[in-house]
């Protein structure tokens, strides 16, 4: 808490430096700010950065290094037998000392050693804070003073400020990239641990999926099987059904919206279609499980077909509904990007509207349309909620859409639900599946984005 207040104090110092710097910049011109090389606001930022950057960095360095040094000092002062204790016990002791120092209740019995440690903890922390804060304040004031002296009519303060801004933007942009890398590595390392227990090829090409690990040596059915082929085929089957729905419907509705609808219809139809994209997937899920699946089963009974109550067809149909707006909006963009010149050229040659659409506009937009389809496929493969609710759990190796199948995402969910030990093959299998899923969707996205890029270059 104190750290937070002191950090805020440093930021206030920098803000004050901004005001002072800007005022001085205006002052040196005698009111004619147009003669300054850089605008007064850049001078303000220049002073604020010269003050705040070193002060805040020093402050955080003190906080990081200080905590480590405090721990070392306390451990060094401990009686022999405690000092020799194992790292986890020592760490727990230190945590309890810190808790006690803050007025909390420690998890271990309060001993004189603990009280002594807590007392020195309190003393050292106070020292650390005030020494660190004073040093940071001092450094900030020196920086501000230095920058203030440099303020001048011809001083180029815009360039350094903009350089700092560039670095800040770069750092912010790096966050998403680093997050992606972090996810990849965390999944990758767990997956590698899985492949220590189960051979890579058995996982990728095995046809039996039964992720059961025995709790005891003599347990029945103790051998787990981690062949992911049934999951892959299940995923592909459901994705295929989804695309058979979303592909034609999305494409044709986009053609209608982009090429035929008059503006009044378009203004109504497009938002309506996009409402579909706003429905939470869990709602689609129970729609699939409670409406579509029983309806299909009833229909199947009427024509004498045996339809599983958790059929691939039901999950695929509803997933297709879900990605219709995805396909149609990307296709609509692709069609809208086709220049009107081409439509005029075709009409000018005596082509009908329909010939123009099918022979010129759609072929010209094809790379964009295909890219949209690929993104939709990657969306369908990674979709979880609908299949968790509407597809089955049984890993059937079948191409029959009336049977129950399971998907990669469903299995990841079931493997990780409940209390699990994180070093059994069963749990680690989820990471291997996750990695496979990630690789496939990443590949699809990269291909799709490159197609979109190439396509856009053509009409620039």
């Amino acid at each position: 808490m104190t750290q937070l207040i002191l950090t805020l104090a440093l930021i206030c110092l920098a803000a004050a430096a901004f005001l002072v710097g800007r005022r001085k910049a205006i002052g040196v011109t005698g009111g004619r700010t147009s003669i300054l090389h850089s605008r007064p606001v850049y001078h303000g930022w220049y002073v604020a950065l010269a003050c705040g950057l070193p002060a805040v960095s020093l402050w955080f360095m003190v906080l990081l290094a200080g905590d480590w040094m405090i721990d070392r000092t306390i451990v060094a002062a401990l009686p022999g037998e405690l000092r020799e204790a194992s790292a986890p016990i020592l760490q727990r002791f230190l945590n309890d000392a810190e808790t006690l120092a803050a007025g909390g209740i420690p998890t271990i019995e309060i001993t004189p050693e603990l009280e002594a440690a807590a007392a020195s903890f309190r003393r050292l922390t106070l020292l650390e804070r005030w020494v660190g804060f004073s040093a940071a304040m001092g450094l900030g004031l020196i920086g501000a003073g230095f920058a203030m002296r440099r303020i001048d009519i011809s001083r180029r303060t815009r360039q350094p400020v903009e350089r700092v801004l560039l670095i800040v933007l770069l750092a912010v942009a790096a966050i998403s990239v680093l997050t992606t890398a972090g996810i990849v590595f965390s999944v990758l390392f767990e997956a590698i641990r899985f492949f220590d227990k189960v051979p890579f090829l058995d996982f990728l090409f095995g046809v039996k999926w039964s992720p059961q690990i025995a709790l005891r040596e003599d347990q029945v059915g103790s051998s787990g099987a981690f062949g992911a082929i049934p999951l892959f085929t299940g995923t592909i089957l459901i994705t295929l059904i989804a695309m058979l729905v979303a592909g034609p419907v999305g494409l044709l509705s986009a053609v209608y919206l982009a090429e035929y609808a008059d503006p009044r219809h378009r203004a109504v139809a497009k938002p309506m279609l996009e409402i579909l994209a706003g429905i939470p997937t869990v709602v689609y899920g129970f729609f699939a499980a409670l409406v579509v699946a029983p309806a299909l089963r009833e229909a199947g009974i009427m024509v004498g077909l045996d339809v599983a109550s958790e059929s691939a067809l039901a999950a695929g149909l509803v997933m297709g509904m879900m990605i219709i707006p995805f396909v149609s909006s990307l296709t609509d963009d692709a069609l809208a990007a086709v220049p009107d010149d081409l439509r005029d050229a075709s009409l000018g040659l005596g082509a009908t509207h329909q010939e123009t659409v099918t022979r010129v506009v759609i072929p010209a937009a094809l790379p964009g349309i295909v890219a949209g389809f690929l993104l939709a496929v990657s969306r369908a493969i990674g979709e979880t909620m609908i299949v968790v609710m509407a597809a089955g759990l049984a890993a059937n190796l079948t191409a029959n859409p009336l049977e129950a199948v399971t998907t990669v995402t469903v299995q990841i969910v079931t493997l990780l639900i409940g209390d699990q030990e994180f070093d059994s093959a069963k749990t680690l299998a989820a990471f291997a599946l996750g990695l496979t899923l990630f690789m496939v969707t990443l590949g699809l996205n990269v291909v799709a984005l490159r197609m979109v890029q190439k396509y856009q270059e053509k009409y620039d």
Partner: protein
Amino acid sequence: MVESADTRDAPRVKMRTRRLKLWYGDKQALAGIDLDVPEHRVTALIGPSGCGKTTFLKCLNRMTDTIDGVTTEGSVTLDDVDVRDRSVDVVQLRARVGMVFQKPNPFPKTVYDNIAYGPRIHGLAANRRELDDIVESSLRRAGLWEEVSGRLGDLATGMSGGQQQRLCIARSIAVAPEVILMDEPCSALDPISTARIEELIDDLRTKYTIVIVTHNLQQAARVSQMTAFFHLGRLIEVNSTAELFQSPAESMTEDYITGRFG
């Protein structure tokens, strides 16, 4: 009217407009145009920007139909049949009255498929050989055959601007039109490409009737036999090109061609 060498034996009128008026919404763009387009002649439409010459051109093959909120009045005839009559199919009209646009707009297809596009949709070729012949003769007539005969399978969008525009002309020739409308066909081209297109226009005159919109007065003087001067949606003056440029009847025409306004 002093007859120039090209107009000595008075040509037949191919297209004719009478009291042609056009509105974009409630803004009037054409205020009653009466113009005769002579057969096998090049008719140039000149005038300052926004004077309605491109709009007028688009009325001739009803490309104005594709613009929302356009209303027209008056008559446009092709061989004495009103193109706005219910009996006239706009698709057939545009096959007879082709159009070349300001910016070269080849389809993102191969050179061959660009030329074959019109013949294919109109069913002009019974088999591949006939289609090949149409493609070759169209490219020859557009003066492009020597340059592209070896790369008919290449994408047309990869050619130079001048080649693309000649390809667009070849593409409109391929459907065997009677009239070709050209909307500033050289405005996006360099002087050498422009010269080639102008030569081409002169060659095409023997077989087709051509109407060309241009901002370039020298171009109008070089390629056309008839010139019509438009201003603010009105047809100010129309005459043989030689006559109009040498001794304009209207002072406004004179001001424009001598560069005093526009």
